[in-house]
């Protein structure tokens, strides 16, 4: 065992039905190739996915929870921004 931990990676899986990759969790790996293999072994055992993305966690920059009020609350009362006043034709999928 080494003293130093392997870096953490975030895993995104695209399922058969899904159109986009969804975050499913994280894991440790020494490099990107190993991270994808580990993701295959940890997160696609039950036919969950057809495509895997991994990104080293340190490259993910997140919004600060303390800013939540300033960031998100102002959108609360702006109902006119929602496109709910249109009828979507039947032929348009995935809306």
């Amino acid at each position, binding site marked *: 065992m080494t003293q130093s931990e392997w870096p953490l990676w975030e895993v995104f899986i695209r399922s058969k039905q899904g159109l986009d990759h969804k975050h499913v969790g994280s894991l440790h790996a*020494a490099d990107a190739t190993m991270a994808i293999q580990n993701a295959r*072994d940890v997160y696609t055992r039950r036919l969950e996915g057809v495509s895997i993305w991994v990104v080293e966690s340190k490259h993910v920059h997140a919004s600060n929870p303390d800013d939540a009020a300033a960031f998100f609350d102002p959108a609360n009362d702006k109902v006119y921004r929602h496109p709910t006043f249109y009828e979507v034709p039947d032929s348009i999928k995935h809306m």
Partner: protein
Amino acid sequence: MLRPMQVAPSETPALNNYSPEVRQQLFAYVLQLADTSLILGHRLSEWCGHGPILEQDLAMANIALDLLGETRSLFQYAAELEGQGRTEDDLAFLRLATEYRNPLLVEQPNGDFAATIVRQFLFDTFHYHCLVELHKSPDAQLAAIAEKAVKEAAYHLKWSSEWMIRLGDGTAESRQRLDKALATLWRYSGELTTPTATEQALQAAGIIPDYAALRPAMDAHVAHVFGEATVPVPQGVFMMTGGKEGRHSEHLGYILAELQYMQRTYPGLKW
């Protein structure tokens, strides 16, 4: 007892087309493949809960399950070829150590992670290349089993190859462990491609692959991975054989003691 299989067993091939002699040879060969996957699968399952990290613990359990799935199909086919009323469970759990036909490599102890990787890499290299050819066998059942297993084996080989490279070209300690594992395990690699009399007969009949023809692709893969790992390919090592003819190392008896305990103690037990 082994649990029910997820995949539908393929339809019975025209077994009557084989002469009793060929059928006996085929039975021995299929049993050899089944024993090989069973013993290696069991060895890998010993890692469950003891892997160096969670991700690799799962990876080894996944591979063990792939091998057990393959072994079930093979034991079922072997039982059918034998036609003596023995079931897959009888064949898997109720034979003596000298009746098992797995090569010596797969019964070797897990050792440290490097030893497990070397054992796996040497086996995967053979397993994958053999399945690719076995897939073309005129025996429909063998070809069908190989078709399913080859995809799994392709991943196993990818996994163990990546680890060979990382251990060889990793830290001083990983390299030293890899060198030690190679010094112990390389001598068991030759048996995989050394045909027994049974295998020679089936090769001559065109039912199973000619191992000599597999060697160029196998050797090229080994050379590539060892090159990446910056590890010289061992040369001039005396190769141990005998497992495929029932002459095993002391390790197999201990494996079987654990593997067979339940069926020996409670005959016919199901769960």
